[in-house]
């Protein structure tokens, strides 16, 4: 397939692998932020192609994984209400809250629908004027513009039965939080290409300078990731700490000004709790006062139940890059995709699920 096969070319892969080996003189630890990249790395065995000196850590960049238990409990509560049609992206449906997930609510009779776009939820609200349609607005800056477009469309259509449970999160505050941690091991970051396609990467430059860490805006195909790693190692070896762009075919330094303007018109930064990381100031996006009528948190009484996390799950440490999935005693035993203890085992972009699916047994050869 054009524009895909070029980035999975085995000869080019082998060349980049040799180049990485050639320039690497010391051990380095690099974190990929985005769950999509984690999935691609484990699926394609990219980490196995790297020299032993290079450690890849998997970051908190899967929106499904970092959505707090409290928000999932709110979603479950909302979805069980008889007047509500609860719409969500597919991979959010199996994430466990304190007691159950959205698929269980559906099985118990709740009207839970899997949609492919927030616009689908707006259409359902238009078609079902007697019901309350709630969309679970999750994602990073990448999905924020689509959520905003849905809200603007709902306002234009005068819909009074559409709202969103807001769980949008921002990448930059999470990177800053990781780097500020005294135990931080990360020496360079692969920044998420699709987030930067929206936001640009100018904002990352002060961060790279302040913490003296190289950041490489990286794409999602095997060659993209290998090249991003190569560029990060080159900076580390040369003692540079700059923001570089590997994903030039999709990302410009200024990002997508139209999308940024849309986000700023409707949303504003709010404090948000991350699963595994805790509360990070100004790390989420919430609705501005002018659009508060679309906030499901305000429309419904969601006096939250007490959120309970599994006591043995180490997904928080995994999301911070301090441990890897096989380090967990529950990995593959008490915790499997069928019975996940934490969100990193649920989403296909979660590090535990990716390891379980592609690495569970060591191949005999």
């Amino acid at each position, binding site marked *: 397939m054009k524009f895909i096969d070029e980035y999975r070319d085995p000869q080019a892969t082998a060349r980049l692998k040799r180049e990485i080996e050639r320039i690497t003189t010391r051990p380095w630890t690099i974190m990929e932020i985005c769950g999509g990249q984690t999935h691609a790395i484990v699926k394609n065995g990219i980490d196995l192609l790297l020299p032993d000196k290079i450690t890849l850590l998997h970051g908190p960049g899967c929106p499904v994984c970092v959505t707090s238990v409290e928000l999932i409990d709110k979603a479950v509560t909302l979805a069980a209400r008889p007047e509500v049609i609860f719409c969500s992206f597919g991979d*959010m449906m199996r994430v466990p809250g304190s007691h159950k997930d959205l698929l269980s609510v559906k099985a118990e009779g709740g009207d839970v629908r899997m949609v492919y776009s927030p616009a689908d939820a707006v259409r359902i609200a238009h078609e079902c004027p007697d019901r309350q349609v709630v969309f679970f607005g*999750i994602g990073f800056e990448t999905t924020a513009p689509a959520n905003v477009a849905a809200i603007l469309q709902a306002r234009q259509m005068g819909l009074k039965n559409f709202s969103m449970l807001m769980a949008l999160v921002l990448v930059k505050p999470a990177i800053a939080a990781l780097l500020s941690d005294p135990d931080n091991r990360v020496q360079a970051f692969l920044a998420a290409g699709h987030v930067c396609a929206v936001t640009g990467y100018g904002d990352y430059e002060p961060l790279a300078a302040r913490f003296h860490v190289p950041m490489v805006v990286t794409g999602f195909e095997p060659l993209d990731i290998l090249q991003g790693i190569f560029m990060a190692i080159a900076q580390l070896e040369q003692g540079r700490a700059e923001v570089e762009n590997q994903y030039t075919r999709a990302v410009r330094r200024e990002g997508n000004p139209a999308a940024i303007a849309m986000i700023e018109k409707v949303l504003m930064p709010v404090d948000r709790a991350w699963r595994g990381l805790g509360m990070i100031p100004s790390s989420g996006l919430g609705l501005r006062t002018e659009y508060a009528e679309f906030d499901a948190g305000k429309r419904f009484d969601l006096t939250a139940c007490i959120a309970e996390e599994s006591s043995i799950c180490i997904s928080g440490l995994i999301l911070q890059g301090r441990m890897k999935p096989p380090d967990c005693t529950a990995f593959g035993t008490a915790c499997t995709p069928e019975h996940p203890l934490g969100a990193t085992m649920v989403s296909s972009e979660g590090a535990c699920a990716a390891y379980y*699916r592609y690495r*569970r047994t060591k191949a005999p050869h």
Partner: protein
Amino acid sequence: MTLSDNFNLNCPLPKADYPYVLLAHGGGGRLMHRLIEDIFIPAFGSQELELRHDGARLDIESSAVVMTTDSYVVHPLFFPGGDIGSLAVNGTVNDLAMCGARPTALSAAFIIEEGFPVESLVRVAQSMRAAAEAAGVRIVTGDTKVVDKGRGHGLFITTAGIGEVKSSRLIAPSSVRPGDVILINGDVGRHGIAIMAAREGLEFETTIESDCAPLVDSVMRMLDAGLDLHCLRDLTRGGLATTLVEIADAAGVHIAIEEAAVPVREEIRGACEILGFDPLYVANEGRFIAILPGKEADRALDILRKSAVDCTPMRIGQVVERVPDGQPGLVTMTSVIGSERIIDMLSGEQLPRIC
């Protein structure tokens, strides 16, 4: 005009003219008989049904028969490349073929939701007839039930089939040996993506059609040629990946495949990239794998190429070795970039990814 004409107690509407199925069509009375007489018997046209008895008597010479059954709840009922009727016939016929059997007879049981259009029922019945003829099998007995509106999903069909075994060897995972090769009869992922596109209203540049087709001819040609088939399996729900894991587990072997060898059409790859799906896990209804000794691979591929249009048979991998007793089977795949990874079963159905 006679007295009886004046005092006709029958409903003035001709019974067959009801445009929708009524609860009464399943009540065992005249309406049900009209449904059977007017729709099913003419559509299926088998001599066994003409006898109008409780069951069908079959005279079978073979000493070994295979029996299988499957229920069909596909939604939407009509989709590009097929419908629930052709699916209900091909699915069961293919299960028989995978056991090395030539299908002899099918049963068909219909659970119809009150209010279902009679015209659609006729279309489904005719589609079943066409599929049965293509597969060389007769529909010899059946059943009809009607459920209250809201308690069904339009139409559910259950078919069962029996077939005569045409292979002296047991065609099953237990016959799989190290050194065997894995052949596939064509590209994967079409049925699942066609259904999903039809169900969700996803539009692609070209209409993606289901690969729904009978596999009897391909299997019988391989058996007639005397090929030593060790295992056959159609790649329905869970797709190629799930099937390989099932066979590796049941046979206690390590199967290794090459990602680059598995045929996937451009439009299917594109749809899967957009949705975050892996085509190896997407359902098919006209694809199967054949596992047989490596030295017979070329001959089998030749036969597969000739036995059906619109297919691209490929050798995708081999059985490497037995796994130690008590360990689960193993399936590994060499990716296009040359690294190796494990292929595992999914815990549920594939869910579209957020990003």
